[in-house]
């Protein structure tokens, strides 16, 4: 018989107030397999761990139950301590008598009785636990970063600078993401491209970054350290390896279409490069706009190209790559305009969104940085900025705060005033959320130095009257209705996840939240990890955030990748499932029930197999297995039944003594 030691933690008063520790220990001491019982005020503390180590050695314990908080908190702490004392760490189990007992009960007697049941059931389990060694898997020290916005580029650079190869995949034909569209950045008003282009150039020339633009991740297999990724490279219809970037094709192209990069405010050619500082600086053909593709004639670009790089026959190419870690940096989009009809966005040309204003304000934009309204090119004298359009709107929009709009609206209003000093800027706001270094001061500057008029309240309606846009709102501080005859209205639209995020989440098998943002493993303590090992999150893919935050998170995600790459082998928990091939009938129910693709039927022996490193130990297959061929190591049917027997046995514990 095993000698089990039980260590009961008071957790200060968290447990001791509701559970009678003394009675609990007394009862446990009478149970047959329990060779040693000790209690301590804080078992997780250094002296608490010492006490446990000492008992393991002196009492020759060969299994331990720590009755304390959730195993999520200190299972690792105690297992490491047990290992240091010479006990196999998988011979230590946590009995959770805090979250599952003392915190949720008031009656001391009943809570004590329940705590006793919980500990006893764990004693039954631990007495049957096997000694295990962690599984070892090799690591491919190469990272995949999905999305080459500022956050993705930063993560790629940091991993590459540390000496590892990075595959940077971007859906667009250029890198830089939304930041490439911005004119200036808050709170310093430095030019966005001035700080972005050194980064894009660095990415482009970095010897360890393999850049794949116009590409999408379509399939991900494998597991941490050993992912196999399939990437579809979409055709640009220009062979970039021979193209010299002379742009003669762009010049000669007869077809003008609204530019997505300029958010429809400017035009581009059907063969074009998104913007002058685009990296890579190579043209691509938009097949939906191109005359050759839509009408079957033209072909001017092909005739013009001096090196014969234009290739109408180009097809998507699928690449298969091996990587050890994945960073998701798919960024954001703005809330769909069709859903805010009351502001007439999409109906009235002079109602624009924040990104459109960025383009109007950008020196490389459609107006070369002059603030002109889209309808007639006039310089607007009265500009209304509306914050929280779609954000914090449970009825029609999204319930969350998009976080950056207060700041960029202040920036917009300031930039406008700097360019049109005799104009008036109004900002309708719900609250001004300016938490950040230098942020509040920035808002103050907008109000005090640039005379931006802040009106606390919502706008109910915008409608055209002559060449003006009438803005109806309310100033809730004065309690007055406000009517402004505006020349231009700028909407600070809610940030929503990239439209590709949902599909990508499915491909990666990581979870997303109700809004479509990727879910982090823990909101405070593991903010850049997904729940799948080896997949990390950064930037607006995880939640709305500004540039400094997106960059900081990129560094954090990169450091996680580097930590993963710091050893040649990864340890995988050995508490996976195991198949008894003698019993297995090869029915395949386990394959269907496994959410991690860890189960297969061996084509030769026709019995089920376990791909151990993929197995997350969830136990779904063990439950599904009709004849018990699949057993969860250290969670066998025998262990589970013995635990259940303990719970359902006589309450006084009679008959337990063996």
């Amino acid at each position, binding site marked *: 018989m095993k000698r089990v030691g039980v260590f009961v933690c008071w957790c200060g008063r968290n447990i001791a107030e509701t559970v009678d520790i003394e009675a609990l220990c007394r009862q446990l001491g009478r149970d047959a397999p329990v060779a040693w019982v000790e209690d301590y005020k804080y078992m997780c503390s250094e002296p608490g761990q010492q006490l446990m180590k000492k008992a393991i050695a002196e009492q020759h314990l060969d299994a331990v139950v720590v009755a304390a908080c959730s195993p999520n908190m200190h299972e690792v702490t105690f297992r490491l301590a047990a290992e240091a004392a010479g006990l196999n760490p998988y011979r230590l189990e946590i009995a959770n008598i805090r979250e599952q007992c003392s915190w949720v009960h008031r009656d001391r007697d009943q809570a004590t009785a329940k705590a006793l049941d919980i500990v006893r059931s764990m004693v039954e389990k631990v007495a049957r636990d096997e000694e295990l060694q962690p599984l070892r898997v090799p690591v491919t020290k190469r990272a995949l970063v999905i999305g080459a916005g500022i956050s993705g580029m930063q993560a790629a650079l940091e991993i590459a600078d540390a000496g590892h190869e990075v595959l940077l995949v971007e859906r667009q034909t250029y890198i830089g993401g939304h930041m490439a569209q911005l004119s200036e950045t808050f709170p310093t008003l430095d030019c966005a491209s001035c700080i972005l282009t050194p980064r894009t150039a660095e990415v482009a020339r970095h010897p360890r970054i393999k850049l794949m633009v116009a590409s999408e991740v379509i399939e991900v297999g494998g597991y941490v350290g050993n992912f196999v990724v399939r990437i579809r490279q979409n055709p640009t219809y220009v062979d970039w390896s021979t193209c010299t970037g002379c742009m003669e094709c762009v010049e000669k192209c007869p077809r003008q279409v609204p530019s997505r990069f300029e958010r429809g405010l400017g035009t581009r050619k059907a063969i074009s490069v998104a913007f002058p500082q685009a990296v890579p600086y190579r043209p691509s053909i938009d097949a939906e706009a191109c005359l050759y593709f839509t009408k079957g004639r033209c072909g001017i670009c092909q005739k013009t190209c001096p090196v014969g790089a234009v290739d109408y026959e180009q097809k998507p190419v699928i690449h298969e790559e091996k990587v050890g870690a994945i960073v998701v940096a798919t960024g954001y989009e703005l809330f769909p305009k069709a859903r805010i*009809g*009351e502001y*007439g966005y999409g*109906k009235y040309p002079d109602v624009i969104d924040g990104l459109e204003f960025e383009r109007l304000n950008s020196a490389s934009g459609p107006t070369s940085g002059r603030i002109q309204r889209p309808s007639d090119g006039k310089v607007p004298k009265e500009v209304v900025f509306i914050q929280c359009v779609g954000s914090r709107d449970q009825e029609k929009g999204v319930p969350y705060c998009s976080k950056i709009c207060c700041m960029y609206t202040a920036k917009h209003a300031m930039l406008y005033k700097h360019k049109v000093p005799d104009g008036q800027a109004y900002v309708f706001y719900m609250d001004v959320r300016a938490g950040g270094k230098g942020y509040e001061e920035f808002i103050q500057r907008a109000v005090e130095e640039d005379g931006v008029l802040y009106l606390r309240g919502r706008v109910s*309606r915008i*409608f*055209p*009257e002559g060449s003006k846009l*009438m803005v*109806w709102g309310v100033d809730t501080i004065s309690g007055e209705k406000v009517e402004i005859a505006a020349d231009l209205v700028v909407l600070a639209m809610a940030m929503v996840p990239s439209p590709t995020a949902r599909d990508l989440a499915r491909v990666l098998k990581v979870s997303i939240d109700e809004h479509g943002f990727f879910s982090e493993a823990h909101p405070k303590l593991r903010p850049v990890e997904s729940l799948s090992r080896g997949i990390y999150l950064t930037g607006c893919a995880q939640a709305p955030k500004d540039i400094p935050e997106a960059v900081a998170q990129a560094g954090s995600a990169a450091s996680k990748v580097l930590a993963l790459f710091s050893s040649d082998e990864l340890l995988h928990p050995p508490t996976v499932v195991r198949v008894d091939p003698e019993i297995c009938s090869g029915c395949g129910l386990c394959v269907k029930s496994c959410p991690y693709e860890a189960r297969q039927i061996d084509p030769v022996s026709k019995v089920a197999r376990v791909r151990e490193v993929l197995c997350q130990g969830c136990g779904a297959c063990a439950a599904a297995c009709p004849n018990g061929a699949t057993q969860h190591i250290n969670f066998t049917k025998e262990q589970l039944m013995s635990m259940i027997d303990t719970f359902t046995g006589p309450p006084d514990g009679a008959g337990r003594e063996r």
Partner: protein
Amino acid sequence: MKVAYFPGCSLHSTAREYDQSVRAVAPALGVQLITVEDWNCCGATSAHSLDPVLSLALPARNLARAQAAGHQVVVAPCAACFNRLKTALCQLEEGGEAAQTIQKVVGFRFHGGLQVKSLVQLFWEDVGVGAIRRRVCRPLEGLRVACYYGCLLVRPPEVAAFDDPEHPRAMDDLMAAIGAEPTSWAAATECCGASLSLVRGQVVERLVSTILAWAQRAGAEAVVTACPLCQSNLEMRRPAHIKMPIFYFTELMGLALGLPDVKRWMRAHLVDPAPVLSRFYPGVGARRGG
């Protein structure tokens, strides 16, 4: 086209001319109205302010009557009736606890397959502007109207489920079809104050004066509505100096279609429509001296 007609209480009292014009215009456009037998009040506004079950059971009873008579489409001219009937229908279709309750209270079993439409919607979606335009014999050319939808006709979008809740155009299209010129204006979906007219008249006066001022600014000669309460509020609670007639859309349609009873309907108006309409129909006007 045969449809069940739910006139609603207002059309039997303050909005009698709406009822009369509906009964005249619909057949002229090939729509046969069959009044829901033994119909009852939809409950607005009292029921849905006080009793959630009653607020659904009252309109549901009418749907039960329509279903029993084998109708597929129930048409309500009044915006509030439409809203209540459609809300009850949505609940029945959803089939939740509320659906069970109201079926029990009313004592019927909902089979599904029933549609509730506002009259504007029926003319716009089912009759179609083309068919209407072809039947116009007296086009109201040059008549500048502001189509007033009020806050309820196309809302809430998940219930009303027709037209654009922020920029509706169904009535504008109907008016254009009869030759009138609908103007783009600000207050098309503003609230008129509705039943506050009974208890807080001043609130309604303020709202109505804003609405009419916007109609004037947009250059409208008249306002067109599809709601009895909007019509009466706009006529009764207007500032004395604004003498803009408020028409039911069916009245102007009747006029354009050359129907005989137009004069009778117009007599019920509190603002004399003669200055606006006499160029299309000499002799039309409100009843003098009460």
